[in-house]
């Protein structure tokens, strides 16, 4: 690790002041950042520990949740309101990493974790535009079984690794930010970027800007929801494909639906076109497959990951079929 200073922020104002120093970086649980420091992929001059800021999880009168960014992944997954009213969020969180890591990781930090693309990590042996802009990408012609099939670019085919974020994308979460120019809110689906020609930028956050809270708006049918993760081993592995979904069915007709995909793109992938293809139609496996095909029409496989397209299609259909048959959220 390169040398850095360490300080704890007691207040948001404290954090912003220290976060404005050149080379400063906010530190949550450290489960990704400490590893990146050790690999010298991150070389901050100063770490500002923001875990003493709000970790409150508040269920508000309008049914929404307001979650302090310092809440741990475990605290959010085990919160009674999340388990009963937003099961897709609870199950997405416990699908990620291991219990030890979820006990450390904060909600804010989870959103800002970097890709696990092995070429991004291999500074000595591989080119990577995300790590070293302009260098080239060895994943595009390399071992790219884990890589993106949607929204990738010539510059980068990395995927976003978070499970929690896939549920937040489906739930239209809103990020609360504080920065040099005051407070602002941002739709969660606008937080992460597609790589385009600037893959070094994961998000649209400005320098020194701090995520203070995440708002999850009420959704009338969010209790009928689930998250399914498909991976190479049954636990403690990153997603090949994952699906977060909530559905409202009345008299066999899809009244409303929310779907997001993980493991397929540079950001949690909200399936807007799939949702539009479902609303007002007769629920059933044929419809679910057809709607998934609409979403995946633009999917572009690399050498090793064409299977993800069929896997995403089938996982979408399986999750929606299961939710249609049974309002409970079975794993």
């Amino acid at each position, binding site marked *: 690790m390169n040398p850095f200073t360490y300080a704890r922020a007691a207040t948001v104002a404290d954090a912003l002041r220290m976060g404005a120093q050149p080379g400063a970086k906010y530190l949550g649980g450290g489960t990704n950042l*400490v590893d990146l420091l050790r690999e010298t992929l991150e070389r901050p001059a100063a770490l500002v520990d923001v875990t003493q800021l709000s970790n409150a999880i508040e269920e508000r009168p309008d049914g929404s949740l307001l979650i302090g960014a310092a809440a741990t992944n475990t605290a959010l997954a085990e919160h009674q309101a999340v*388990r009963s009213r937003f099961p897709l969020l609870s199950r997405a969180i416990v699908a990620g990493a291991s219990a030890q890591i979820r006990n450390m990781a904060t909600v804010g930090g989870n959103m800002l974790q970097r890709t696990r693309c092995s070429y991004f990590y291999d500074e000595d042996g591989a080119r990577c535009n995300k790590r070293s802009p302009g260098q080239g990408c060895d994943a595009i012609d390399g071992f790219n079984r884990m890589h993106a099939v949607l929204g990738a670019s010539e510059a980068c085919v990395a995927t976003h690794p978070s499970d929690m974020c896939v549920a937040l994308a489906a739930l239209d979460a809103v990020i609360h930010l504080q920065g040099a120019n005051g407070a602002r809110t941002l739709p969660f689906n606008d937080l992460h970027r597609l790589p385009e020609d600037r893959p070094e930028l994961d998000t649209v956050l400005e320098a020194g800007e701090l995520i203070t809270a995440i708002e999850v708006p009420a959704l009338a049918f969010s209790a009928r929801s689930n998250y399914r993760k498909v991976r190479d081993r049954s636990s403690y592995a990153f997603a090949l494909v994952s699906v977060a979904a909530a559905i409202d069915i009345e008299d066999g007709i899809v009244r409303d639906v929310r779907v997001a995909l993980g493991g397929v793109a540079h950001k949690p992938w909200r399936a807007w076109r799939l949702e539009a293809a479902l609303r007002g139609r007769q629920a059933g496996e044929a419809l679910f497959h057809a709607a998934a095909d609409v979403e995946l029409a633009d999917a572009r496989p690399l050498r090793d990951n064409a299977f993800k397209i069929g896997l995403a299609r089938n996982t979408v259909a399986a999750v929606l079929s299961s939710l249609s048959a049974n309002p409970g959220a079975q794993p």
Partner: protein
Amino acid sequence: MPMTIHINGSELPLPDDPRVSLLDLLRDRLQLSGAKKGCNQGACGACTVLVDGQRILSCLALAVQYEGRSVISIEGLADGELHPLQQAFIEHDGLQCGYCTPGQICSAIGMEAELRRGVPSYVTEDLAGAAIAPTHEELRERMSGNLCRCGAYNGIVAAIVDHRGKEAQ
């Protein structure tokens, strides 16, 4: 006033260098070599310790982040005689080479507290339910952050089941 950390009941100064991980503090500076440096990147669980009762990975923790907190490593569990879960690991062959064992045992103690608290897992069918049935599948899923390359998994689960049963009596 130097910053301090509580480790196995003793209040100790934190290192001046914020780059020192909690694992390196334990192993290299305090000669508490129970927690193991398997992968040093959060993939194996061999460095698991308890902080204020919660299991964490000490390799992904900077020691300074845990100022004022209470850390228990495997060395802090035995009190004159082995902790009952340590004894259960021996009785059920929950180890062969023993390298992952300190992490497995600390992890299992944290896991038991999570189960009592009702923390769900990926395989919990009813997420909203008050009680979680501690099935074999639940225990395997909840312990999946601790790898055992000898493959003593069945013995590890048997030791945990035995320990939980004795605790419940």
